[in-house]
Structure formats: structure tokens, C-alpha cells
């Protein structure tokens, strides 16, 4: 028995020593933060590793969570790169000086509006809010299918709406920001106070409402395009609704952190993100990517409002503080 214990202790010491030794070598995988859903990110990571030979270690955090982590860690941010984040946070990170500029040739044909001019961040795809409606529940309970943001306030939906929490979810912040930009702040707050009465559950992640509606837990869920469309493709009894007033959209961006100790690898990955191959893979999970000619976005963008991502970057802190004050009482 004693020998076994000695052996175990010895093994432990060895493992610890090797673990510590590893962290200094250059073979360390690239550390990546993402806000993408696990399923999508798994496929992307596999593809990136195959095509670049760079190994990735990924941590998924929903947008709000990821951003507050980055802010807390700065200037020693705990990752080399971010793949998938809100446009507004990209702008904020750029202002704060968290990002490493890198001009990649692979991204040349992507329109300028989708990338930062010094190459601090690059937009891979964009996404927008979409409402998921469970047709079975709507029928069973004799509800109407909502057609607009305004309709969601109807008392008939009391307790039937799943909404993501803007404290953690980027999808949710896009909703908040859309309403505020459309209605103005004062009316916007009125809107959310009324909506709050109908909300059955606030979820931490922006994709969760779509899944909850697909499962039949709630009649209506406000989520984002691909999360909803995936379930429709899989044959769940749900349909998508684009609110009449229009929806906000956000660019999904990637960047390299200024404090990375593996800039070469990160740049290699960034190049690959702009390649035809990756954009095509991305298109399997997103309705629109930024590289021209891969996805057809002619008919969707009709529904977009004139969305201002800079407004996000400038006002998020203030809006969120007020949100906490109003809905955490």
C-alpha cells in the first residue's frame, strides 16, 4: 500500500512539473474566447485546426460575460484572440487599446464597412434578432401570432415569452439597443417595463429562447436568426417572425488581443478566418457572411433598421446600469 501511495505522489509531482514546463514552450495552443454557441464553435475549431495547423483552446462565454471578463483582466487578458463577439464590443476594445492591429491580405475583398481600418477587428458574419413562435402552443392556447415588437406587449402573452438577459447576452442587448434606437430612450424604457409583465423567463444565453420555444416550454422566444432557423430546418413546429418595425443586426467580429505572446499564430488564424474556405463553413451556421458572393442577403436586409453599432459602444454601460436598476428591484 505504501508503495502505491509513494508511486501516486511521485506521479503527481511529475505531472505538475510537466504541466508547468509546458506553459513556457511555443507549442502552447492558441487561447481563444468566443461567444458562439458550442455546436457551431466545435465545427469551426476543427476546421481551423485542420487548415492552419494551429491548435486552439476555446472558452465560451456569452457576450456580456466575456466582455466583463476582458475588462477585468486587462491589460493581462487571458486569451490570445477572440473569435466571435459583438460589433460594439469590438469598437470598445479598440478604444481601450486592447487590440493588436494586423492588416491581413486575405480580408482584402471584404467591404471596408465590415472591418476596422487598421485591421484591429474583422467582421466574419452578421446576424440579427428574430422571434421564434411555437405554432402548437399558439393554436392550443388560442393566441395570435405576433407580428411586431409592439404586439409582444399584448396581455394575451402573459408569461409566454422567453427573453434573453441583456446583462449576459449579446442577442438581448441587440434587442434593447434596437428598441432604444427606434423609439428613443424614454419610450424604450416604457416598452421594456411593459414587456417585462409578459416575460416568463430571462435566459442567460441568447440562443436559449429559441431552444425553449422549440421544446415547447414557451410560445414565443426572442432570439437571433440562425438559432431559430436551425430548429425550423430540423422540423420543429416553430415559425420565425420578423417584427414589422424592423430588427437590429450586429456584425460578428474577431480580433487579436494586444497582449498575446503568440502573435504569429494568431495572425495565421486571422488570415484563415478571411479565406473562402472558412467563410463557406461559416455560411453553414450563419445566414450572412461578410465575404461577397457566398451568401445571398438581398431580401433579408430589407428588414434591417438603420442600426448604429457605435451607439452600442457608447451607451452600453449606462443603459445596462439603468436596466439593473429597473429590473432588479
Amino acid at each position, binding site marked *: 500500500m505504501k508503495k502505491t501511495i509513494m508511486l501516486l505522489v511521485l506521479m503527481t509531482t511529475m505531472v505538475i512539473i510537466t504541466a508547468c514546463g509546458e506553459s513556457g514552450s511555443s507549442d502552447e495552443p492558441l487561447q481563444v474566447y468566443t461567444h458562439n454557441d458550442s455546436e457551431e464553435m466545435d465545427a469551426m475549431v476543427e476546421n481551423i485546426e485542420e487548415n492552419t495547423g494551429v491548435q486552439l483552446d476555446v472558452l465560451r462565454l456569452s457576450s456580456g460575460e466575456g466582455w466583463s471578463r476582458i475588462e477585468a483582466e486587462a491589460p493581462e487578458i487571458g486569451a490570445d484572440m477572440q473569435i466571435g463577439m459583438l460589433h460594439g464590443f469590438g469598437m470598445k476594445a479598440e478604444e481601450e487599446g486592447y487590440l493588436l492591429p494586423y492588416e491581413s491580405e486575405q480580408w482584402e475583398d471584404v467591404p471596408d464597412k465590415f472591418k476596422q481600418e487598421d485591421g484591429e477587428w474583422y467582421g466574419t458574419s452578421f446576424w440579427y434578432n428574430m422571434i421564434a413562435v411555437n405554432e402548437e402552443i399558439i393554436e392550443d392556447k388560442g393566441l395570435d401570432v405576433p407580428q411586431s415588437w409592439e404586439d409582444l406587449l399584448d396581455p394575451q402573452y402573459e408569461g409566454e415569452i422567453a427573453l434573453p438577459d441583456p446583462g449576459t447576452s449579446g442577442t438581448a442587448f441587440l434587442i434593447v439597443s434596437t428598441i432604444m434606437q427606434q423609439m428613443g430612450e424614454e419610450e424604450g424604457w416604457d416598452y421594456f417595463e411593459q414587456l417585462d409583465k409578459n416575460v416568463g423567463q430571462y*435566459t442567460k444565453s441568447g440562443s436559449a429562447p429559441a431552444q425553449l420555444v422549440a421544446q415547447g416550454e414557451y410560445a414565443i422566444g426572442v432570439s437571433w436568426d440562425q438559432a431559430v432557423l436551425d430548429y425550423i430546418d430540423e422540423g420543429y413546429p416553430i415559425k420565425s417572425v420578423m417584427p414589422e418595425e424592423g430588427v437590429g443586426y450586429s456584425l460578428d467580429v474577431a480580433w487579436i488581443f494586444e497582449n498575446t505572446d503568440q502573435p504569429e499564430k494568431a495572425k495565421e488564424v486571422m488570415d484563415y478566418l478571411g479565406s473562402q474556405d472558412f467563410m463557406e463553413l461559416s455560411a453553414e451556421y450563419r445566414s450572412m457572411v461578410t465575404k461577397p458572393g457566398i451568401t445571398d442577403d438581398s431580401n433579408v436586409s430589407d428588414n434591417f433598421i438603420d442600426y448604429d453599432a457605435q451607439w452600442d459602444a457608447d451607451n452600453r454601460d449606462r443603459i445596462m446600469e439603468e436596466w439593473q436598476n429597473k429590473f432588479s428591484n
Partner: protein
Amino acid sequence: MTTETTRTTKSKKLVSEFRQFLSEPWFAILTTILAAAILLFIVIPVFAVFFKSFGIGSGGFTFEYYKEFFARSYYLNSLLNSLGAAIISTIVVVLLSVSISLYVTRSTSFLSKFYRGAALLPLVAPPFIFSLSLIILLGRNGVVTSLLNDAFGLEFSIYGFWGVVLAQILGYFPIGYMLVESTMRNMSPSLENASRDLGANQSKTLRKITLPLSQSGITKAGLLVFVMALADFSNPLIIGGGETFIAAEAYLLVVGQQNLEQAAVLGVFLIIPSLIVFIFQTYVMKDSGLETISGESGASNAPLTKRVKSVVMTINTLFVSFIVLMFIMVVLGAFVKIIGIDNSFTLEHFQSRNGWDSLYTSIIVSFLAAILAATIGMLQGYLFARKPIPGKKALEFLTLFGLAVPGTVMGIGYVLIFNGSPFFLTGTVLLIVLNMTFRKIGVGLEASISKMHQIDSSMEEASNDLGAGPYRTFGKVVVPLLSPAFIAGFVYTFMTAMVSISSVIFLIAPGTNLAAVHILNLAEQAQIGMASAMSFVLIVIVLSCMGLLKYIEKKTGVSI
């Protein structure tokens, strides 16, 4: 004059103690390192949370964050919700523990073994697993809910306070059950027999003899379950609906807003009840006297009579079936597309590289933590039981205190302490290992101390007299004797580390994600299928490790 003498004798004693302490320099050095480690990894993080709640370290002393706490009914509500849920779960767990223990300790049938196994099953699963299966079963569109709805037009929702209570009862049941069962098993049957001989029927005997005798075990179980339920943050996140709970709120304050000060205030309110319970358990309960009656006679307890048995068995069967049903739901959920909606078989939920990576990390990390915790526990147990160490009592108290600190508080403390110089450890595997280790060393320590007290020191003296030095004696005599305590510490730490979440969730980084945290993240994305699949694999791994240990136990004859 007399006080003077006592003081001199006291100080003389202290001096001689110190001299003795220093006479074996290696042990002295070890003890000092241990003490420093306990301070750094248990005590300082908790103090850091306390200081932070007053804004110290970020802008100077202030009551601002406490004012904020009391100004918002929201925070107060979360505290009340947590206390309420913890109290209800505790009462139910204790009642169920007594009921199942009564049957299991008085029967050797296959059914009794099965009940015992099923009752302990929740130990090997992440603590929030029942929230997942409760949603599958009783969610707004759950399997049972739909049936009830179709049959009676009955509609209800499991999300909210009662969902959390139910999930906590299921999740924390084994902790309470283990303690109650071991007390009842060790109880001497002679008193019960006497009571029966004197004419009391069995239910009267149970009420007047058995339960009072098990009181200390039951109280201890209740206190432990209470502390764990209070600190529970994962169930509220998944099944809490709109209700707020204090540990979950503290977590969201950290990850969502980086409002560490406010989170620290919540942490303080979380730790106060735990501290009270811990002190009560350590000092008030120690000398209840009743627990000293232990079963030496070898006779076994009288089997239950028909009447008592029928009551107990009804409760037990219902509860155990419920647990088993919950696990079946997880297994089913892992292998079908979306359970209850699309029940076609699939393996796609298992194809997650991130998931497998996190499982791998969990195994490595838990293994290291278990080895460290068991080794430290054994060493500390020996030193504390045999060596004169200044401040021994305080150190022992602090070590055991590590077990009582709510994980959320410990996690926030680690974030505060190790995110800057002089100990920059954030994002490293090492920090996660240390966190898991020092939260659990109390178990190995307790096991070692009680083992040391059972062993007479004559063996060590003999070894000494025969010329072996103190270190050789430790290696050749003490370590082999303590191996059961080592194994106990190892098994407990490994099992709990594999499924632990509340503390380590603050410490993960890319590449060091852990299985339980990954599963919670999947649950937050409402990916029930993937979450079930990963839980299933996690449960299988922990169970196989337990099986392996049982096998080693059989082969080597060391009892575990």
C-alpha cells in the same frame, strides 16, 4: 501569586513545546509550510471577500455596498429565497434519510442494497443534473406535464422556487443520508431490544430510543445539507425561472458585471449562516454524549415490523424510483434528438470536442487535487495527533472551515487574491487544483486524526526504541497505518472535484475548462441533449473510478 505561577508554568510549557517542535526540524518545516498554505488558500481568500465588501482595495472603506444590499428588495429577496429553499430541502432530506436508513440498516436483502446504491447515486453527478431532468419531466412541455395536461387540462410550471427546492432535495440527499445511515448502523441494538422487551411496540421504540440516539447524526446531516443548499447556485440558474437566489446572484454579479464589491457583500451574507452552523457543529455538538453508545456487540438491529415497514417502504420506494427516473431521463436525453419532441436515436450529442477536452481536464485536475488533498490530510493528521504544535487547535479549525465555506465565496476570494502580484495564478491549472485541494483537505484530516486516535502510539515508540528515527518511523509505521485514511481522502476529493462547480467556475480559462462547468454552460444554452450526454459520460467515468477502487480494495484487502 497563584496566577503568577500558572502563568510561568504555562509559558514554560509553551517553551518546552516549542523546543520539542523544533527538535524534529523536518516536521517543523513541514508544519510551517502547511500552516502557511492553509492561511493562503483558505483563510486569506475569505478575508479578502470580507474586506472587499467594504470596498477595501478599490477606493477605500465604505458601507455603500451594504446600503445597496438593503436598499433593494431584490437582494433581500434572494437571501430569503435561498434561506427558505435551504430550510425546506433540509427538512425533507433529513426525513427521507431517516426513512431509508431505517430500512437499509435493518435488512440485508438485495432490495436494501439496491436502495442504498440508488440513494448514493446523486453523489457522482453534477449537483444541477436534477434541474435538467426535472425540466425534461416537468417543464412547461415536459413528459409528465403534457400527460397531465392532456388528461386533466392541468397546467403547471416547474420553473421557480419549488423547482429549485426539488432539485436541491434530490441533489443533496446523499450527503444527509450517508451521515444518518452511519449513525444508525453504529448504534447498539441492546437498548432497542430492552425497550421492546419492556413492552413498547416498534414505532414507540423508534420514537423514544432510536431517533434520540441518532440525534447527533441527524443534526449533523441537517446542518451540512443546509449549508450546501444555501450555497447552491447552479440549480437556481437553470430552473429558478425568474426567482433570484443569493449564490446565483453573487455569481451573476461577478461574471455579468464584474461588480466584485457587491458580490462580496452577498458573499458575506452567504458565509454568515455557514459560519454559525460550522461553529455550532464543532463546539456545541461535540459533547452531546449520546453518540458515544456505539455498537460493539455485533448483534444486529431488529428488523422492522410490518406496520412500520409498510410506511417506510412506501416513502422509500417512491423516492428511490424518483431518483432512478431522473437518471433514466438524463440517459434518454443523451441519446435522442430532443427528448419528448423528437425521440429518434442519435449519437450527435456526444460529438463535442470541447466537451471531451473539458472531461480530460477534469480528470487530470481532480486526480491531482485528490492526491494532494489526501497526502496533506494524512500528513497533517499525523502531525496534529502526535506532535506538539503551537496553535494546533486553530489550524485544525481553519482546515475544517475550508469544508464549510460556500464555493461561491471561495471562488470570489481566489479571484481577488490570485489575480495580481505577488501570486499571479489566474488562468492556470495549478490554481484550480489548489482550490479543489484546500476546499477538501478537511476530510482527509478528519479521517487521519480519528485513525491516529484509534492506534496506540506504542508501535511508533517501539520503532523509535529500536533505533529508527522519527522520519523513518513515519514512513515505515505511520504511513501504512494511515492508508485507509489516505484512500478516504482521495476518494472523497476525487469524486467531489469531478462534479464541483461553484468555486472553480470563476477560475477556468481557455484550455482549462472543466466538465461540470461546460455542462452548466450547455444547460444555459438550453442544449439539453448535449448537456445530458456530457453528464452521462461524467457519471460513467466517476462510477468506473469508484469501481476500480473497489476492485483494488478487494485485491489488496485495504478497506475503503
